[in-house]
């Protein structure tokens, strides 16, 4: 058969199968002369069918990349913030941090809870020699009585029992033991009245916290204000 009739696309189209008898080779050549019906397919249609909406796919890829990148930035910034914060904390509160505590902070810890002002007033009060000295001349009887009552009911009563004064404590010692007891306490104690310290400790029985008499504060005030200045002191 004439091999020049073969398709120009592929020169091997007319290649004969090896080992065929002449009769079969003739049939083969005869069949190869027949051309199958051509196909008419649109490449663009095929590509669109293979990859529907490629622009959208590309956009999805781009947006996904952007999302990953922004998430990466976020994580990186968070890690950097943690690292910087940890470094700052190490520098501020490192092993030498105890040495860097200010003197003010140390002094706050050493403050005594005891009422220093009242102690100062007590020191000024002329009871060091009870019964021998009198109140300052510029004090009138009323002020002196109030101060004495306050001292006897409050600070001195508790000091005698050894109870430390604290904020919010209800002060209500025995009213009848006012000045004599105060004077005896001041005499028996070895504390320098001019320099009261926060470490003083007094022994006071717990019963001293409760009033023994039925006398009200108003009656006591009236009784004391009605008396003379010498009686009070």
């Amino acid at each position, binding site marked *: 058969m004439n091999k020049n009739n073969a398709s120009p696309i592929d020169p091997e189209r007319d290649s004969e199968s090896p080992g065929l008898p002449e009769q079969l080779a003739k049939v083969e050549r005869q069949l190869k002369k*027949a051309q*199958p*019906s051509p*196909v008419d*397919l649109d*490449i663009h249609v*095929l590509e669109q069918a*293979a990859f529907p909406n490629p622009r959208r796919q590309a956009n999805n890829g781009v947006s996904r990349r952007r999302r990953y990148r922004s998430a990466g930035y976020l994580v990186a910034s968070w890690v950097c913030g943690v690292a910087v914060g940890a470094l700052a904390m190490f520098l501020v509160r490192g092993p030498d941090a105890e040495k860097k505590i200010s003197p003010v902070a140390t002094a706050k810890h050493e403050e005594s809870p005891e009422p220093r002002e009242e102690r100062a007033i007590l020191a000024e009060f002329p009871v060091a020699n009870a019964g021998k000295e009198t109140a300052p001349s510029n004090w009138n009887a009323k002020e002196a009585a109030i101060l004495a009552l306050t001292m006897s009911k409050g600070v001195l009563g508790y000091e005698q029992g050894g109870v430390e004064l604290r904020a919010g404590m209800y002060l209500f010692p025995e009213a009848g033991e006012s000045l004599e007891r105060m004077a005896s306490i001041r005499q028996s104690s070895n504390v320098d009245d001019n320099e009261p310290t926060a470490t003083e400790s007094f022994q006071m029985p717990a019963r001293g916290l409760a009033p023994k008499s039925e006398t009200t504060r108003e009656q006591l005030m009236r009784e004391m204000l009605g008396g003379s200045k010498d009686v009070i002191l």
Partner: protein
Amino acid sequence: MKQIDGEQLQRLIDGHGAALVLYARQWCRVAEDALQEALIDLLRQAPPPDRPVAWLFHTVRRRAMNLARGERRRQEHQRRAGRQREAWFVMDPDAGLDSEELASMLHQLPALEREVVVARIWGELSFEEIGQLTSTSSSAAHRRYRKALALLGEMISREEDSDGNHEQEQRVADRSGT
């Protein structure tokens, strides 16, 4: 190269599209649909197959079988498609065989022999590739090919003889008529 581009696909269609459609006609009547689906699959392949022609024959075969199953389910559609049957071969007066006669001869072949002939003659596949395609050995594919050619040779001889007898009868009739 990640995927087959449009230019390569066009070359494949120009060179092997007709043979692939002919191959798909062994099973279904909508052979171009089978080829189209196979080409779409080829475009999606990443990386592309090493031997795209053999790969296309495999895929066209599978697609054509699937379409044939669908056709069997829709018998009405099948009848309609049968009425619109397309020609398998191009009409060529220089060719020794008529296209319809050749299609009829191929139809008379056993299915596997027909498949081997189409894959070998118009698909230009090697016997090894045909063996892989039909799940047989290359020697078995070669044997079937020889058997198919022998059957087709007999059919062609019979056709030529019948044509010769018909022409002789026609001449006799012409002479008697004159």
